[in-house]
């Protein structure tokens, strides 16, 4: 499982180009930063108040005034810019943060996303997720393809939505899927899986890109 999550994070890291400003969610999305190519500069947004997350802090460099959106103490890059919540989410809703990487409970074939609440369970809250999904031009979902064997990529979401028609790409251990106007298109397939196996793990209908490529995780 750890290897599969690393595979997903490595693949997701290839989405970014020199100069990009992106937001990485908690969990597997955070791992993506470890695999971004060293010869490009990508600036990571921390929605609680700055652009320029570097690494997890330790006792040698911990600053009590610098946490990430998960409340963990982190360090910042020299080009960091701090801001308040209003400016932070202005950057998000204004489309200035090019991409957000998030996990999902359910994704629908039209790009609807559910990842913030299961009715009846403990109350958590959306935090900044709804703003990020509405504002960022690219909403990239990184997740295991199924949950306990049950498909997470569905015809329709059954859980309350985080945002409508927002997901642009889904990266799982099996494949890479683009969300297009006419549905879900698989653009890369991992050699460990067949098309039939991927479709069987997916409730929504998958389309296969004519230029289907092997999963690019090198």
């Amino acid at each position: 499982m750890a290897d599969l999550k690393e595979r997903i994070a490595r693949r997701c890291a290839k989405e970014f180009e020199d100069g990009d400003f992106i937001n990485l969610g908690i969990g597997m999305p955070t791992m993506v930063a470890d695999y971004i190519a060293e010869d490009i500069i990508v600036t990571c947004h921390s929605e609680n108040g700055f652009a320029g997350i570097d690494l997890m802090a330790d006792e040698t460099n911990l600053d009590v005034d610098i946490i990430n959106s998960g409340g963990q103490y982190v360090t910042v890059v020299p080009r960091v810019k701090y801001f308040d919540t209003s400016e932070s989410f202005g950057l998000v809703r204004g489309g200035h943060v090019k991409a957000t990487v998030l996990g999902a409970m359910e994704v629908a074939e039209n790009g609807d996303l559910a990842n913030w609440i299961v009715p009846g369970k403990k109350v958590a809250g959306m935090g900044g997720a709804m703003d990020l999904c509405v504002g960022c031009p690219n909403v990239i979902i990184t997740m295991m393809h199924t949950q306990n064997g049950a498909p997470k990529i569905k015809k329709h979401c059954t859980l309350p939505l985080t945002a409508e028609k927002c997901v642009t790409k889904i990266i799982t251990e099996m494949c890479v899927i683009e969300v297009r106007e006419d549905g879900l298109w698989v653009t890369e397939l991992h050699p460990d899986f067949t098309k039939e196996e991927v479709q069987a793990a997916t409730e929504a209908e998958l389309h296969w890109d004519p230029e289907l490529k092997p999963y690019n995780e090198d």
Partner: protein
Amino acid sequence: MINKIKTAQEAVAGVKDGMTIMVGGFLATGSPEILMDALVEKGVKHLTVIANDGGLAEGQPNPFPGATSRGVGKLLDHHMVDHIIASHLGVNPRLNEQFAEGTLTYTLVPQGTLAEKIRAAAYGLGGVLTPTGLGTPMETNLDELGREKKVVEIQGKKYLFELPLFADFAFCRPTVADKFGNFYCAKATKNFNYVMASAADHTIIAPEKLVEIGAVDPDIFAVSGTLVDTIVEGEKPWQI
């Protein structure tokens, strides 16, 4: 000149049962601890709290055992809050305990929308139009005062119309303030402190460092002292 400097006890004397207060901070980073302590000491009840979250409980964040509750967490420990308006309620376990007990209710607001609702109150706007929350429970749920949300269409695009969010008191934690109340918050402690300082009837600040007027370059200040009613000395940097 009016002397805004008071003790913490004097500063919170006007906070009454049932009032609405705003508390700066994000998971307690940037929360004014000595003002929360003074509210606990006063024992005020039935508050409505507007904050990003419920602060931290004893022992959080891991792995720092021995840490005391912080920020709004102190008010929750003492069951002083009846309703909380926030974007995230998952971290401090006191929140879900009190929801289950039926002693605390909540209104969830997306983080960016929460900031803009407060900013609208601060800056005299009738509300905010945001695309955030369309097609989600944010569109169909009632707002913090039980009002239905309106969807407004402008130039072919839909937006949720969100109303301003006011408070009786705002509690903010500057890193540096002068004795007139001009202030700024360092690094990631800004969060909600700036918008909240402008949106309440009374604004109380607890700066980590208080300097004489004119002692620092005024260009560093982000919030005008004209918005600040009361200054309380003695806030310390958080120690792990």
